[in-house]
């Protein structure tokens, strides 16, 4: 009786696995149904809601949503110069942060993946990841104290005779903090890309008479470009949507798209306008991802 049940269940199991083996599409459906549902319900539905609410407006007196179709929000967005300034500033900072992180990450990744000893490699790997274990807020607050007028940076600069920099609460401060915060997200994909460059190719380049600079430009850089593009997606999009760093370390002219969205949702209670402005980084990221795909960034993921 018991043996029969085991046999029956094992035949049932083998029948299921045989059916799955014969029908790859069924396997795919089973594997993807949960993430697919998540994607459609949470992600796409939220995006659609965002677009739809961008076409509504808020009654100024009662603060209630008026569910009638209007392009008013986009009109304000285009016609008011201040929103253009803010969008361009956000774009500029995101680009500057991305370039900075590339410049910092590439030499680091080459050193870590090619030159460092096994032990040092392990240490560097942990050193890159450890900041991600502490709260983002704590790290930004730490920078606020470092960059403040009576902070460590000015203290050090005065000590060595350069004179105070006073970059606390400026766009420079934002640039430094963003570059610091998102650096691990650039280093990891670039590191992984550098590791994929075969040693033989670099040796061949040397054998053919290329110096290290030429080898880097003609061999390494083109091969790690997808990794750089992948990292830049992180640094660029994360900067584009952030509002905490500008609030904490930014100055009088440091409003970014995220701040306007936050203020409209949390302070002014104008969700439709926030939704309209939120479509701006969405469009920018869409264009950016298309360009990154052309560079082969998704092969490195």
């Amino acid at each position, binding site marked *: 009786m018991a043996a029969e049940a085991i046999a029956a269940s094992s035949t049932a199991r083998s029948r299921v696995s045989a059916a799955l083996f014969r029908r790859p599409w069924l396997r795919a459906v089973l594997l993807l149904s949960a993430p697919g549902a998540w994607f459609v319900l949470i992600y796409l539905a939220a995006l659609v809601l965002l677009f739809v609410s961008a076409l509504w407006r808020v009654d100024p007196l*009662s603060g209630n949503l008026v569910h009638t179709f209007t392009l008013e929000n986009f009109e304000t967005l285009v016609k008011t110069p*201040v929103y253009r300034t803010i969008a361009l500033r956000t774009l500029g900072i995101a680009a500057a942060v991305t370039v900075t992180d590339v410049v910092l990450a590439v030499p680091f990744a080459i050193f870590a993946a090619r030159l460092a000893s096994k032990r040092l490699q392990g240490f560097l790997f942990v050193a890159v990841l450890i900041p*991600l274990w502490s709260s983002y807020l704590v790290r930004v607050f730490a920078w606020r104290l470092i960059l403040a*007028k009576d902070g460590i940076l000015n203290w050090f600069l005065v000590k060595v005779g350069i004179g105070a920099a006073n970059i606390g609460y400026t766009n420079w401060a934002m640039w430094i903090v963003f570059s610091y915060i998102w650096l691990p997200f650039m280093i*990891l994909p670039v590191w992984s890309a550098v590791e994929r460059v075969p040693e033989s190719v670099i040796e061949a380049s040397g054998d053919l008479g290329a110096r290290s600079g030429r080898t880097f430009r003609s061999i390494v850089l083109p091969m790690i470009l997808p990794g750089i593009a992948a990292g830049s997606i992180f640094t660029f999009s994360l900067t584009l949507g952030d509002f905490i760093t500008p609030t904490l370390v930014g100055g*009088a002219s440091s409003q970014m798209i995220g701040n306007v969205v936050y203020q409209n949702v949390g*302070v002014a*209670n104008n969700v439709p306008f926030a939704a309209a402005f939120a479509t701006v980084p969405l469009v920018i990221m869409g264009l950016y991802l298309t360009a990154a795909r052309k560079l082969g960034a998704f092969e490195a993921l």
Partner: protein
Amino acid sequence: MKLARVDWALGAVLAVMIVGASACGSSSSSKPSSAGLPSKIGAGEGQLYLVAWEGYTQPEWVKPFEKSTGCVVHSKYAGSSDEMVTLMRQNGGGQYDMVSASGDASLRLIDGGDVAPVNVALVPEWKNFIPQLQSPSHNTVNGTHYGISLQWGPNTLLYNTKSVKPAPTSWAEIYSPKYKGEITVPDNPIQIADAALYLSKTQPSLGIEDPYELTERQLDAAVELLKKQHPYIKKYWSLASDEIELFKNGDAVIGAAWPYQYSTLVADHVPVKQIIPEQGATGWADTWMLSAHAKDPNCAYKWVNWVSSPKVQAEQAISYGETPVNTKACPIMEELSKGSCVTYHANAPASYFDSIKFWKTPVAKCDNGRSECEDYSVWQQKWTEVTG
């Protein structure tokens, strides 16, 4: 092997980001309760959710309240009146029981149906309030009370006595390049009224009488002044603690402030002083208002009774540096800290009250009955242009 490790880490980072992003949205449901006036205060619900100005729910008077009533206080600090209004409306409005609304938020909350009428008979101390704040127009509409007045005071000019010399006497200091890059003002559209008040004294030709009732021309002049001020500003602060930090670290040496920042900085031994400049000052008169969807109305009534009592009135007045509404608070203030009754104007004549231009919501209809004033949505828009 190495490669797999890096890829794995990348995957983990991505997963954390996705989980973090999806955990951000949560919702709560609420049932609006009927708004009939209660005739007595029942047993406490055990909880009380408050939206308050920073410094309004100090342990000094919250802890004893929790002990004596069993109502546990959960407070959320808001940085501006706009934020208070939004917090009281979010998720159908049932999230918070009470809000310490200033005069520029209270009418918006009443108009929006976000707050409920209260029975002043259940707050015996109300009879001891200064007459101007028993039924002020910012919380009492057609004889219906929508809250219990709390405290009031001016917005002051705060400065570092070591860096700002000679001692300032005028608001002109924050509109001039003299302290360029060391000035801080609140990130709040109502700041336009401060500029308008300054202009009403320095440019009488504009004819500004009430800094909250500005015609297009007057508003433009105020915005012009604020745009000129923009390059001199270090930072527009949004929470009182931001300004405290700016003064502590030497990033700002002069700015518009509340007395709370002053008393906190003095307690931290930062060399600061605050004054009401010669042009006068804007100010606030705050009201504890009950949400129309409050889940803990009994604890709410217990709370307004608690904060209206002379003792708590005195404690809060000294802690924050503002003026109590309860006239019986003066002797207790003297007991707690000698001279504080006079310092915080608890026994000041009515003329002092009248000298402050209290925050109110700008509306299209001016006092003269004509609809030529700019309403608050225009103020908000202009403020974005100033700070953007």
